[in-house]
């Protein structure tokens, strides 16, 4: 059983929902990322999605675009992100880490070299935004052989047939993109999300994490009620941007954001 599957299974047994934060690796500086990961674990998160910065993040809104620019300015390469995960693993052997990003940095490193290095570093899952399962035939088996969970996106526009096919290629969880748009936009409609996630649950046994548009305890609880976990990204990245000059203040601000979300999600526990 993968670390991701284990964590999600335990949560389910407890009737709890996963809190999954996203931050961009190397933002505000590569030396700070591991510390921020530990801070988030202390605030009660279950799985960490670590963004691999890319020069052309087409699916992201301005907040994450700027985070990528800050991270790249300090030389945050894919190899450096993997080194961060290794560092994190020295003191944390339990919290799953999912790398989320775009395909080209992986292509440049080479699929096999990347899969080896990711497994070696202690990465648990890979989510590549611009890699639909149709194009993943060469790389997904390399992940599976090394115990890395390939995680794919589902969207409001994804048909039933595609939901089934994508779930067949996925392990760990599937990531449901809550609305049509880029990260950081405020367009979430909880009723629509509830209907689509219910449909996804009918079509696959995999846990469903929902991301895009979750910004506070209220939206986290509303989405948590209808899914297996919530993914929180832009609001955290924006907090990093606003507090980048003072890391201790930044850690307090992240904790202050995540604590109420954790409480709100746990208040749903049956």
């Amino acid at each position, binding site marked *: 059983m993968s670390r991701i599957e284990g964590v999600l299974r335990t949560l389910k047994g407890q009737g709890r929902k996963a809190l999954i934060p996203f931050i961009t690796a190397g933002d505000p500086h590569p030396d700070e990322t591991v510390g921020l990961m530990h801070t988030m674990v202390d605030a009660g998160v279950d799985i960490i999605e670590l963004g691999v910065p*890319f020069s052309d993040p*087409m699916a992201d809104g301005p907040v994450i675009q700027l985070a990528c620019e800050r991270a790249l300015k300090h030389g945050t*390469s894919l*190899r450096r992100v993997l080194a961060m995960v290794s560092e994190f693993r020295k003191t944390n052997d339990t919290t799953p880490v999912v790398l989320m990003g775009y395909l*080209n940095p*992986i292509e*440049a490193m080479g699929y096999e070299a990347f899969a080896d290095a990711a497994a070696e570093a202690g990465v648990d899952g890979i989510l590549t935004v611009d890699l*639909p399962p149709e194009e993943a035939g060469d790389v997904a088996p390399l992940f599976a052989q090394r115990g890395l969970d390939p995680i794919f996106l589902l969207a409001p*526009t*994804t048909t039933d047939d595609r939901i089934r096919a994508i779930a067949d290629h996925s392990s760990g969880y599937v990531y449901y993109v809550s609305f049509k748009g880029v990260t950081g936009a405020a367009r979430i409609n909880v009723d629509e999300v509830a209907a689509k996630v219910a449909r996804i649950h009918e079509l696959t046994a995999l846990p469903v994490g929902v991301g895009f548009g979750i910004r506070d305890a209220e939206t986290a609880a509303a989405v948590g009620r209808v899914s297996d976990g919530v993914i929180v990204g832009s609001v955290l990245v924006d907090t990093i941007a606003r507090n980048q000059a003072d890391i201790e203040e930044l850690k307090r601000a992240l904790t202050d954001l995540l604590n109420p979300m954790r409480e709100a999600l746990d208040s749903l526990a049956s």
Partner: protein
Amino acid sequence: MSVKLTEEMLTALPDARGHFGAFGGRFVSETLMDSLMTLEREYLRLRKDPEFQATFDKDLANYVGRPSPLYFAERLTRETGGAQIWLKREDLNHTGAHKVNNTVGQALLASFLGKKRIIAETGAGQHGVATATVCARLGLECHVFMGAEDVQRQSLNVYRMKLLGAQVHAVESGSRTLKDAMNEAMRDWVTNVDDTFYIIGTVAGPHPYPLLVRDFQSVIGRETRRQSLEKTGKLPDALVACVGGGSNAIGMFYPFLTDESVQLYGVEAGGLGIDTGQHAAPLCAGRPGVLHGNRTYLMEDENGQIAGTHSVSAGLDYPGVGPEHSWLKDIGRANYVSVTDDEALEAFRMLTLVEGIMPALETAHAVAYAVKLAATMDKDQMVVINISGRGDKDIHTVAQLDGIEL
């Protein structure tokens, strides 16, 4: 490596997943997949639909003004002292460039799909103008994304688009040029996917765009082939076209791919020189990667981050290239070369002075290479340059380089 291409091989490409050999494909976020599959299905149907094709042909004749002439550049040929140089006059199309062939086709597709809102990216502004033009004609809402740097250096085209009723969005992210305009257009598309049709201006992007843009632009090569046979009784020995994304080049090359005797030359932007790294020549100096929905040759650093590009011509200032060109390069069917900013500027002046035809700076790259090539060929041979656009939009750039304030 060079393989002999047959009609059968060509009709099999791109394959069902949009691949040209190792290149192409559909690398986009999930939200766009359904829309792309619908577009593919509808386009493959309309491609064989006589009514759609007849409407397209009629628009090309009556609105664009086709066929464009194939013109013998007698004085340029004499000055060069080699092969006969002929010019395929896409600059004489309505709006002054080849871009309109594609926008007429895609706007027609949008109409058949019932989409009322159009978005487009643009570099030099030619595709933006061509898109705004067809939107004005069909009464469609038009949004054009353009890098903030290009908005500065192509202010004339920006104003043209506004006069045509389009909203021009200056893109401030990244390098503020064509690639960033394309990122922003994709972000708009993912947000408004239900009612919006994205008119991509070149043969790049996710499948089926490289296929349908190539189909719409192939009228250039089909006419050239017919006109060449009519006027000279033979096929040209060489075709030369500039390559940014590569739509005018693929449109010229495609109908000649199985004609082994016809040499194909795609001319990339060498900028300040390939060895300076300040250029936009992925086929000459890049390597395969994935950007904007397709696998193709890219300019990137060792970590897979997309590299900055430089060219005096905004329309060639792009780090990628259409996937079919990447395939033609790898199988050895087409030759990809580069010329520098300075060589292009010199060719811009030469064609203007010797033939009274002012080419776009993009096109001037093809002219520069073709003149060098023709000089090495026999007098009874024939070179065709695709004059992909006219140079009025570049007068400010050229004047500025001359130190003249207009």
